[in-house]
C-alpha cells in the first residue's frame, strides 16, 4: 500500500459536473482529491481487504438472526420496543438488502481492523463506484497510469446486478428518497436510480419530506399513490424516532435498506461480534459502555448511533485525548484504539463495499485528524502489480 502523487486531470471539475457529481467541493473545501492515489497489490486487495470483508459480512448476517430472536440483544442495541417485531419480521421474510460499507484501519501490514459497519446509509457510493472508475479510465487514456492498472471496484456492476436480482420481489411503485436539501444525498439516490433503471426497474425519486400518509395508514407519494418500495437514504434509527414512523410496522411499505439493517447499522454490533468471535484477527476488542466515567487509555468511545465520525472520544495509548463534537448521545460502545494508516501526514480510512452479499470495491477517505469526519477527502486507488513502475506525468 503506497500513496503516490499524480497530476490531476485538467478538466476534472467539468468531468464531475457533466456526470452529475455536483458535490465534489463541499462548503468551499475540496471533497474529491485526485492529486494523489493509493496503490495496492492484487494480494493486498484480495487477502487484505476482500476476503476479510466477505467473512465479516457473513459473520454479521449470522448475528442478525441471533439478535432479532433476543429481546435482551434488542434492548442492548437500544432498538425502540414498538419496532422490534417489525424488524424481526423483516429478517424472517429475508427482505432484500442492497449494500453496506465496512470501515477498516489498515496500512497494508498485518490484518485490517474493522472500525465499524455502515450498513444502513453508507455514503461515498457514487464517487467510489463511478467517479473513481472514470478517473482511472481517464488517467490510463492520458498515459499517466499504465493500462495494466486495475481497481478494486465492481460496485457499479454489482449494484445493477443486485437490483436486477431483487426486482421481481419489490412491491411497486418503487421510489428512492433522500433529504431534499442535501446535494450529496440527492446525488447518491440519483445514482442508485440510474443503477435500478439499468437493471430494468421503473422507479422515481421523492424527497423524504414529501412522503405522505393516507387515512388508512399507507405511505404515499405526491400523487397520493401508495408507495410499494422505498429506498431511503435516511437512517432507520432516525425514522423510528419520528412520529411519522408510527405506521411503518403496519403500512406494508417495503424499505431498502430493510428494517433488519437497524441491527447492523448500530455500533452495538461491534461488541456482539467481539463476544461471539473474540480474538478474530480483523476485529478490535469492543464492549458496551454507559458513556459515563473516564475512558481508559487505548480506547475509543462511540455512541450506538453516530455518523460521519461525530461524538467520538479517543483516549490515545499515550494518554492524550481527542474528541469530536456532534448531535449524538445516548448509549455507547468502547472499542480498542487502532491507528488509521498515515501517509504524507494524512489519516486514511478504508471503506470496503459490499453489494448484496458480494465484497466488491474500495473507497478511501483522508482526513488531517485521526477521526474521519464528513469533511474528509475522497482519494482514488489503483491496483498495480508490484513490478510495474508508475508513470507519473
Amino acid at each position: 500500500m503506497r500513496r503516490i502523487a499524480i497530476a490531476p486531470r485538467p478538466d476534472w471539475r467539468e468531468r464531475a459536473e457533466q456526470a452529475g457529481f455536483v458535490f465534489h467541493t463541499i462548503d468551499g473545501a475540496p471533497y474529491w482529491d485526485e492529486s494523489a492515489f493509493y496503490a495496492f497489490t492484487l494480494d493486498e486487495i484480495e487477502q487484505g481487504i476482500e476476503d476479510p470483508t466477505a467473512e465479516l459480512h457473513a459473520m454479521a448476517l449470522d448475528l442478525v438472526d441471533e439478535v432479532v430472536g433476543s429481546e435482551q440483544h434488542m434492548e442492548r442495541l437500544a432498538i425502540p420496543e414498538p419496532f422490534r417485531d417489525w424488524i424481526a419480521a423483516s429478517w424472517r421474510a429475508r427482505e432484500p438488502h442492497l449494500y453496506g460499507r465496512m470501515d477498516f484501519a489498515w496500512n497494508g501490514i498485518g490484518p485490517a481492523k474493522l472500525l465499524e459497519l455502515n450498513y444502513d446509509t453508507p455514503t461515498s457510493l457514487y464517487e467510489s463506484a463511478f467517479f473513481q472508475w472514470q478517473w482511472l479510465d481517464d488517467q490510463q487514456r492520458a498515459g499517466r497510469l499504465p493500462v495494466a492498472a486495475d481497481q478494486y471496484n465492481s460496485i457499479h456492476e454489482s449494484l445493477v446486478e443486485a437490483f436486477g436480482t431483487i426486482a421481481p420481489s419489490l412491491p411497486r411503485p418503487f421510489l428512492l428518497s433522500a433529504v431534499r436539501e442535501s446535494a450529496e444525498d440527492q446525488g447518491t439516490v440519483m445514482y442508485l436510480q440510474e443503477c435500478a433503471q439499468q437493471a430494468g426497474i421503473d422507479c422515481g425519486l421523492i424527497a423524504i419530506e414529501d412522503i405522505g400518509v393516507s387515512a388508512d395508514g399507507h405511505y404515499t407519494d405526491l400523487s397520493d399513490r401508495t408507495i410499494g418500495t422505498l429506498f431511503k437514504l435516511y437512517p432507520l434509527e432516525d425514522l423510528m424516532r419520528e412520529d411519522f414512523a408510527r405506521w411503518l410496522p403496519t403500512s406494508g411499505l417495503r424499505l431498502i435498506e430493510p428494517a433488519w439493517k437497524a441491527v447492523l447499522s448500530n455500533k452495538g454490533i461491534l461488541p456482539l461480534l467481539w463476544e461471539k468471535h473474540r480474538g478474530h484477527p480483523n476485529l478490535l476488542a469492543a464492549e458496551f459502555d454507559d458513556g459515563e466515567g473516564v475512558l481508559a487509555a487505548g480506547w475509543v468511545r462511540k455512541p450506538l448511533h453516530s455518523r460521519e465520525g461525530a461524538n467520538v472520544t479517543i483516549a490515545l495509548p499515550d494518554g492524550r485525548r481527542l474528541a469530536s463534537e456532534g448531535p449524538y448521545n445516548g448509549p455507547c460502545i468502547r472499542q480498542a484504539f487502532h491507528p488509521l494508516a498515515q501517509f504524507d501526514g494524512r489519516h486514511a480510512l478504508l471503506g470496503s463495499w459490499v453489494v448484496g452479499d458480494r465484497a466488491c470495491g474500495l473507497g478511501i477517505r483522508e482526513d488531517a485528524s485521526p477521526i474521519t469526519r464528513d469533511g474528509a477527502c475522497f482519494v482514488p486507488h489503483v491496483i498495480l502489480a508490484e513490478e510495474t513502475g508508475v508513470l507519473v506525468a
Partner: protein
Amino acid sequence: MTVPLLCTHGQTVRLAGKETMMKRSKTTALLLMGTAPLLLTACSEEESVREGLYTSVEACVEQTNDRYNCEQAFTSATRLAEAEGPRYASREECIAAHGADNCNEMRTSTGHSYFMPFMTGFLMAQLMRGGQPAGLASSPAYRSPNGTWQRPASAGGVYRAGMNGTTAMAPVNARPNAAPTVSRGGFGASSAGRGGSSSGG
C-alpha cells in the same frame, strides 16, 4: 429502446484465474445523470464463453480433451459446493429437493445440524478471448428428482446462497456430458460518445 449497457460474460460463474479477471466494472455507463453524452463503451475484444455440464472429470475430458482444466473445474466446484451449496434445516426438505440418498448431515462450528445434497455434477465455463482460453469458471450442479439440473443461484451472483437455510437455485439448461455450448459474451457493437474506444485496461 433497449441499450446494451454492460459487457457480460454470458452465464459465466466465478472466474478462477485471478490474473485474467479485472477487479473493476467493465463499464460504468450513466445514461440519466448529468449532461454528458452516453458513456457507453464497447468490450474491446471478441469474447465468448464455452460451457458444459459434466457428471465426472472423465466425462469432461472426453468432451473437451482438456484434463487439466476439467480437474481444476471439478476441484473448485467441490469447494464452492461446500461453501455455497444449498443448505436445509431438515433432512425432509433436502430429500424433497434432491431425492433420497442424496443428502448429507453437516454441523456448524457451534454444533447446529443442517443438511446438504451431494454434488452430482459440475459446470465448467471457459472464457475465450480471441480464440484463446482466458479464464475458467466452475460451479457445482445438482440433479433434481425430476431429472432437471440446478446450480446455486449465487455462485458468482451478488447474493449468497444458503443464507440461513434459504437457497436460491438457478436452472442449468445444458445437457450433461454433451459437447460444450458456445455463447457470445459482450454486446460490443454499441459505442457512443467516446468514438468506440475501449473501456481501457
